[in-house]
């Protein structure tokens, strides 16, 4: 565990029939939280499934700490925590029994599993629900069970696919806090299309479109690159100055309309940029 973890991905490609889901994706990651942003169908889940060794790529390879994963799958899986998209959990099992089931699949010995399950359940605030049937849990609680299972083997790489789908704002906040607590020395890749999930917690943002990674940059860099303006002028007039401007929103205030927009040109009223603006700038 003292070694610095490193994930190197080299030209991963995957297609489903004629649809190219991943197009020569390459990156090099060190410990930190990485937000994988993109529309539905951008290739986020395909990328995570390949990294989780669930799916095989057509081309390319990836290395963990210098070892080719293809040839060291078992070792890699021992270091992996994966949370797939929300789905039905076995309804008959209790929360605790489900975690024991996953522990058996992760080859964790009974004594270790016992203490680990208790500490993780405490961490995700599910200790008092340990005997509850999975079928009776709310969406947020199920998500927490899935996060708990991902953490069972003290993973060095954590892959989270749409982890906050179906959560209310309070649960989203708790989730963000949880991720921040557990992410130390880990490579956490968090795929989502909900900006607020990653705002403030992600060290780096990976923007993905049509199976390609468009950029991997820090939030500050991205925010710095995107210039957002507000103006009460008519949109047609604004477009005369920059035909490629992207409208973020338009709000009617009394008899006037205020337009918020992104532009490469310089306008009078420069306002602060949010991550939503960055998302629109890259993917809108």
């Amino acid at each position, binding site marked *: 565990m003292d070694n610095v973890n490193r994930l190197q991905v080299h030209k991963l490609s995957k297609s489903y029939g004629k649809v190219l889901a991943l197009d020569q994706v390459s990156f090099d990651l060190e410990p930190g939280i990485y937000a994988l942003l993109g529309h539905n169908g951008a290739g986020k889940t395909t990328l995570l499934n390949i990294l989780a060794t669930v799916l095989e790529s057509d081309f390319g390879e990836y290395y963990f700490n210098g070892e080719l994963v293809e040839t060291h799958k078992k070792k890699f899986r021992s270091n*992996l925590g994966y949370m797939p998209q929300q789905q039905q959990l076995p309804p008959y099992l209790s929360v605790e029994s489900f975690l024991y089931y996953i522990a058996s699949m992760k080859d964790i010995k*009974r004594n270790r599993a016992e203490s680990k399950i208790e500490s993780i359940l405490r961490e995700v605030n599910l200790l008092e629900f340990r005997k509850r049937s999975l079928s009776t849990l709310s969406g947020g609680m199920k998500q927490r069970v899935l996060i708990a299972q991902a953490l069972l083997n003290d993973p060095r790489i954590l892959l989270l696919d749409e982890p906050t789908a179906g959560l209310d704002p309070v649960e989203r906040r708790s989730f963000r806090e949880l991720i921040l607590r557990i992410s130390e020395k880990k490579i956490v890749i968090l795929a989502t299309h909900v900006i607020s999930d990653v705002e403030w917690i992600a060290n780096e943002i990976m923007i993905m479109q049509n199976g390609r990674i468009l950029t991997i940059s820090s939030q500050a860099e991205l925010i710095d690159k995107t210039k957002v303006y507000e103006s009460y002028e008519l949109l047609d007039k604004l477009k005369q100055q920059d035909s490629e401007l992207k409208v973020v929103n338009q709000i009617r205030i009394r008899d006037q309309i205020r337009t918020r927009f992104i532009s490469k040109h310089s306008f009078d009223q420069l306002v602060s940029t949010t991550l939503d603006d960055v998302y629109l700038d890259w993917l809108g």
Partner: protein
Amino acid sequence: MFTSEIRRLFQNVLVRRLFIVLLLGFGLFSVNIFYGIENQNYKNELEQQVSMNSIQNSYLRYQLEAYGSYREDVSKRIENNEAKLNLPIFTDVDIRTQLINENIALRKIQSKDVRILPGYAITELLNSSLFSVMVLLLSCLLVYALFFEDMIHQTIYLYRSTPQTLSKLYSSKIAVFISVVLVYSLLCTCMVLILAQWDGIDLRSPIQWLVDFRFSFHFFSIIVYILVVMFIQTGAALFIGCIVLLFVILTRNISLGYTLAFVILLVEFILNSFIAINDEFSVLKYINLFYYMFGSIDHVSWLMFASVRLDFLTATLIFMLVCGMILTLVSRHLYLRLSSNGFTHQKVKGYQIRSTKLVWHEFLRILFFNKAFIVILLVLAYSYNRYSSFSISKSLGQIDYEMIESRYYGELNTTGLDRITKDLDEAKSAYEFLESTNSGGQKELSQEEYDALDLKARPYPSLIRIRNKMIQLYSAGSRFFVNDDGYDYIMESKSYFSVILHFGLITIALSLFVAMNVHNEYQNKLMQLYLSTKNGNLKKIRINMWLYYGVTLIFTFIVYSLYIFKIQKGYTIFNQNLPLFALTSATTSSMSLMNYTVISITLHLFVYFSILRIVYVFSRRFDVAVVVVIMIGFAFVQIALFNFIPAFSILYLLTISFVNQIWVTLAWIMALIVLNVFIQAKVINSSH
């Protein structure tokens, strides 16, 4: 509302597919019985008017025996009654009237032209209880689809907000439930009647040839019998559907409700099986859901109601109608209450398993937390029912003969022949002595002396027959004298119906069991999570496969053991017959019984393991219904091939045929090995 409920019901893919599968399944099964080898053989034998002695072990032989004993029994009963009437001690007027009335009825039976009819297919079809199973499955599914899906998906609250009352909704659902089951039953009945008509059966003939109806005074025709049996079974299925509805509503838990309903059916089965006819609680044997569902509805029940001047059908219909009405009203009341109070089909506390052994988790998941395992249990219950309800009708003379013959079973040598010759001589001298005494040539005998001589002389005719048979076999080179009737059934050279039934049932049950298990996991994205773990790939698949093999092994073993026990009930096989390692050259096969059994069981397992693996591969790609339909199609193609070109059917390996043409057997084994290697590669590749 009725129309919209029907439309909604048939938009449910599962209901639509299962309705078609159940209808096709019953149709194909019926076609197979009517056009199968056994029915064709039976009809050929019947047409050839062959003498009884040349017919071996066939249905016709038993039917002819039953027919013979039926004529004999009727005449004897008339004679006995006449003799009693002539005796001075029968002076009681009531007894005399009863005897006279019985004789009138018996003469009426005697005067009826009861012929041997080609009734094999119909009898087998009704005895198979397949219709009952199908209509029961359909009822349970319909209750689920109509009443509980709304509650699980909580759309019931949406309905409550509409102007329609829940009471009306409930009534329309009940009406749809009854109508769909009735339509299914009507279609099945029409199929049976059409097939019977095409088979050349006169549907208006009386059914006195059925053992259970030998002394029935009602003279039911075949058409009435079919209609009565199938509609009583439909009534019972509807009734069970109502019970399921009631229990689920009462317990507010789907699994528990269904389990309780099946427990009730099991209790009914135990009451039906273990209460004797003359027991004081015999009423529980006949007014019994299981009896209506799977029983042959014999004449005893008809007579029981006839004594209170109600025929069985009317009594049954009134009984079911009243009970059904009560059940429906109670469940309606509870349904309305439940719909207001909410419905939960899951218990709050989950099952607790604190183990990190993957094999233990998989074992519990596959065998205990998997509803599909019920299918296996149902088939086992059905096999047990076939075993427990099996009986062979033999005349007293035949039973006596077989008992005497069994004394000489064993090695066929001069010692054995000397033994029977000695017994024959003794019987002969006793017989001749009694003859001369009766004709007045000898002194008067005391009662004891007469009885002792009579006991010795009685087997004389049978002993002559047995000795001739032994000499004939001895001179033909046989080493053993055995009753090999049962061996033909064990080696499945005569009982094609059982082979087909077992093959069909085991294939379908395994398909459902594995497909529901595997598909559920693979459809659920949770499988991706499992695959991303260290043991979630090859180890999990390996454990699962071993568990499936284990279930298949035990399941197949129990089904075939019950079959062997069933045969053992009617024939002598293992007790005092052929030694296990003796060559059965005197019988159908040139193999010893033990060798045959071991090879046959191995081949059975090989075939069913291969089927299991095919289903496993399919289940990861296709929907459960699709897999089951594919496997039903596969089973019927194999059965059809077996009827027309046996060597091209996989069933070739499941009968004595595999001994006959060793090259065909080897070709089949090679084909299965190649198939299994291919499947193994697929499984390993996908689990990397």
